[in-house]
């Protein structure tokens, strides 16, 4: 199990470098890597996006499907987020193995979007109590070079923002598609910022190398108005209360930068 030696040496170097505010790839502790967002890439989807942070690449696609509402919210549509780890994205992913990492990723991305109430799900109702739109948002991890959560959240968000929805109408008691398309009922623009704790420093947007040696990470999602709408500490280390407070403060700052990127990408798409 000498494979544990290399990360330990590397961790020492990363921590030493961070004492002077630097990182192995030249970034400052609060810098994101280069962010690229490309929307509308999958014409057959109702919305799609490929987001990259550094070399991490995630594709997201949105598909509308007619389905049944949940009994307790009979007049609202349903958003379902899935995450798939394509095996070529990392030598560690095995084909067909359901993984708690993929489940956590899907659920963290889901909460960031859902809790911000970015979609007016009441507009996704077709026949109250009977038929609603199911919005499938699936993220596919294509290249894993660190910080999957933020990249997947960006891809999912921008796929939704650039989606249009099919128009449905009732003919007798059957639901038919009119063939027209409606704009998405978008109400917010939530973004997610992840920091890694390594030693006693916080690293915004950890790279793959940094993730291999981190103590833990913390991800925070913010609404446009600056409110927090989701948070997740991950991995087996801990943060002090003060570190948590500091991390959320940094994340709040960075969220505005990320949101600007999103707005730019969306405007390009229009």
């Amino acid at each position: 199990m000498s494979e544990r030696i290399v990360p330990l040496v590397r961790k020492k170097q990363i921590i030493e470098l961070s004492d002077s505010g630097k990182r192995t790839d030249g970034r400052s502790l609060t810098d994101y890597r280069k962010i690229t967002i490309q929307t509308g890439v999958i014409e057959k989807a109702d919305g799609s996006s490929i987001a990259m942070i550094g070399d991490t690449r995630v594709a997201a696609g949105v598909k509308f499907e007619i389905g049944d509402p949940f009994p307790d919210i009979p007049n609202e549509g349903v958003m379902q987020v899935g995450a798939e780890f394509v095996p070529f994205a990392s030598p560690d992913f095995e084909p067909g193995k359901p993984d708690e990492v993929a489940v956590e990723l899907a659920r963290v991305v889901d909460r960031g979007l859902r809790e911000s109430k970015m979609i007016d799900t009441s507009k996704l109702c077709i026949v109250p109590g009977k038929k609603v739109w199911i919005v499938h948002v699936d993220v596919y991890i294509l290249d894993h070079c660190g910080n999957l959560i933020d990249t997947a959240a960006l891809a999912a968000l921008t796929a939704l923002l650039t989606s249009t929805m099919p128009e449905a109408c009732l003919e007798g008691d059957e639901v038919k598609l009119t063939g027209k398309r409606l704009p998405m009922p978008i109400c917010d623009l939530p973004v997610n910022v992840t920091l890694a704790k390594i030693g006693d420093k916080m690293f915004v947007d950890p790279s793959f190398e940094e993730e291999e040696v981190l103590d833990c990470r913390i991800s925070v999602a913010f609404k446009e108005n600056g409110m927090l709408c989701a948070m997740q500490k991950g991995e087996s280390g801990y943060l002090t209360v003060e570190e948590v407070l500091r991390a959320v403060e940094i994340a709040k700052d960075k969220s505005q930068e990320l949101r600007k990127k999103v707005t730019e990408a969306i405007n390009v798409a229009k």
Partner: protein
Amino acid sequence: MDKSTVTKLISDDGIRCDGRKVDEIRPIKFQLGVLKNTDGSAYVEWGRTKILVGVMGPRESHPKHLALADRARIDAFYRMASFSVEEWKSPAPSRREVELSKVIREALQPAVFVEYFPRTSIDIFIEVLQADGSTRCASISAASLALVDAGIPMRDLVSSIAVGKVEGKLVLDVQDKEDKAGESDMPMAYMPTKNAVTLLQMDGQITYEEFQQSMEMLKKGCLEVYKKQREAIESHFKVVEPASEEA
């Protein structure tokens, strides 16, 4: 989750639907050593939430190639009984149960001296018999005690509690009804003597100031849980004979 019209979960003078004040936790009863076939176990009643935790280990890792050369491998399995919630639940683990198993494991691991038991496994099995809010907090807090009962050396106990926002007010230790109707839920797990946050999650909407306030309330709440955990340990080891079972 239905967060629609609910009539008054908090009265004008700050009393909640179950009679508690906003910063008051529910009655919590911990008990160690309740199972026969484990290395350690604990039972918790946390309001109406009822959970059994059993620890197996340190024991040989199986399959062997998952063993770690320099420390014990910790696994947690959080499961809800089919009858523990309002609607019948299929026994197949849901995605929620998979995620919670992961964050619970990560919340407990920093407390365990895993380096004392290389190449072994420590398995933490959690069965929620009845869920009435805060099941992950109750699970983590009880699992700490089950680890103690198993004689596994720990840096500190892990104590856990949640703060929610209900009708615009921050309240400690949300129960199910408040969670479903509430605007947010924020559970934390904490090792008090280490000032170590080992679990932190949030959903819902809160301002940055509310977040700061919540952190204060969570710290205070975890200390209260910590006190109850310590009392349970003391009463368990005070008894000469093995502790009687729950109820």
